[in-house]
């Protein structure tokens, strides 16, 4: 069914009885041309673009739990293209352009809201760094405006501008940044993939690979063996485990990142605000909840929950930046397992195993990358060539020294 205002109107008149399930629930077939492991944002978008751009429709997405139940349902929904380094810059730029056409493409309301994302600066040195970043974003063809004190005061009047420790000197505004509805992105891609014939198979855990003579033949799952011509892995925090089943050791650690939401409030924060010095960022959802997050808990974790010291730290940072939010009640918190790569940049590449492709290392920036990642990964799987926007995300870059270290922290997985 194609969604339209007319459909909403007609179904409204007929008791909303005309809506159909958005995807089928098929049993696995014995063989697929391509199997994607992981039914999150990246896996679903990869399957969608395989079918749409490359005409490969004999595809299965295998999901251990339910579709969109991992990090795509557990993030802070921020979309942006404010990266600086060659490799990252063109990729996130490409991804943001895909976001901008996504609703029309999917015929699904992903609620993309380009409300602007601002990074705050607190010293002359930091303002210079923001100016440099802004220039590099503009050279890439994206937008950036350097705001001085007065402009930040005008737009973000509710901040604590004169704090003794982090007085606000200005900020870098990226107007095309913003938020999107996280679940809707997963559901929209799932629906689009299903409509094109992709089998979305839930409650199907991959237990191992069948590899002969260096070529992948299929995967053993909790629902039996499934043969495949090619296999792509998009399992985020579980990349090390799935990689290990295929005999790979990856430059990745899994860490927990927490996020929080308050009760619904009247509109008060119209943009996405990033307070880098306090490891704090915040936006307001369409329901009115303040959605905010901070830094990693800083130790390896697969628990999908964090600990209280980071809750306290994030709340303190929030209070330091915008004291007014102290009145809001925190409603929920959640944790996601981040696949932290050793240079903070993702990996989209082939492997030494013929027909096995990996897509991982998204750190805590995977949500905004969902369209670009699916496009680039499907291109690699279908053609064997790197997508031009993602031809630097190579696995071997760590070995050859071509790391893409946006924050300049060196080989540490938890500081990016």
């Amino acid at each position, binding site marked *: 069914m194609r969604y339209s205002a007319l459909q909403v109107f007609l179904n409204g008149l007929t008791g909303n009885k005309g809506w159909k399930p958005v995807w089928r629930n098929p049993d696995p077939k014995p063989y697929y041309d391509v199997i994607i492991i992981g039914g999150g944002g990246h896996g679903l978008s990869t399957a969608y673009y395989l079918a749409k751009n490359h005409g490969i429709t004999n595809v299965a997405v295998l999901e251990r739990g339910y579709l969109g139940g991992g990090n795509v349902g557990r993030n802070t929904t921020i979309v942006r293209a404010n990266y600086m380094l060659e490799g990252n810059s063109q990729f996130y730029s490409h991804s943001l352009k895909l976001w901008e056409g996504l609703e029309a493409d999917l015929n699904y309301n992903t609620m993309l809201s380009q409300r602007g994302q601002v990074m705050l600066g607190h010293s002359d040195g930091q303002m210079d760094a923001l100016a440099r970043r802004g220039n590099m974003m503009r050279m890439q063809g994206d937008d950036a405006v350097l705001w001085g004190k007065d402009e930040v005061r005008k737009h973000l009047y509710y901040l604590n501008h004169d704090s003794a420790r982090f007085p606000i000197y200005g900020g870098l505004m990226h107007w095309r940044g913003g938020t999107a509805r996280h679940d809707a992105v997963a559901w929209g891609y799932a629906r689009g993939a299903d409509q094109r014939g992709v089998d979305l198979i839930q409650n199907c855990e991959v237990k191992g690979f069948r590899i002969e003579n260096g070529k992948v033949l299929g995967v053993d799952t909790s629902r039996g063996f499934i043969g495949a011509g090619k296999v792509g892995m998009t399992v985020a925090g579980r990349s*090390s485990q799935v990689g290990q089943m295929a005999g790979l050791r990856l430059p990745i650690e899994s860490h927990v990142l927490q996020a929080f939401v308050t009760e619904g409030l009247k509109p008060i924060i119209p943009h996405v605000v990033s307070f880098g010095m306090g490891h704090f960022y915040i936006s307001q959802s369409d329901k009115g909840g303040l959605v905010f997050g901070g830094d990693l808990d800083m130790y*390896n974790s697969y*628990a999908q929950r964090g600990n209280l010291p980071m809750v306290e730290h994030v709340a303190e940072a929030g209070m330091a930046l915008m004291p007014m939010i102290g009145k809001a009640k925190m409603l929920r918190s959640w944790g996601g397992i981040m696949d932290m790569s050793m240079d903070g940049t993702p990996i989209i590449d082939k492997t030494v195993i013929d027909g096995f492709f990996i897509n991982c290392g998204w750190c805590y920036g995977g949500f905004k990358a969902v369209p670009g990642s699916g496009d680039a990964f499907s291109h690699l799987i279908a053609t064997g060539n790197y997508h031009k926007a993602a031809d630097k995300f190579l696995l071997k870059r760590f070995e050859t020294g071509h790391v893409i270290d946006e924050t300049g922290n060196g080989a540490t997985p938890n500081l990016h």
Partner: protein
Amino acid sequence: MRIICPLCGDRDSREFHYRGAAKLINRPDGDASDQAFFDYVYLRDNPAGPNRELWFHETGCRSWLVAERNTVTHEFLSVDLAETAKRGAK
């Protein structure tokens, strides 16, 4: 999380700094192969379950510790001084 430091006893995890996999205390010799350094610097086992890792008791005795901790439950299984652990490994 609470960590039982071998010197200071049961302490709040906020007193500790996390460094990562315990294999980092076994740096390859300077003349080791590029592959050995690549492995040392970049590759991680990253297990879901018991993980041997380095913690530094930053605001306590300032000892480096090797802890075994379950990354699924956050439960600490053992904590040793890194010095002891390294000597044991040799």
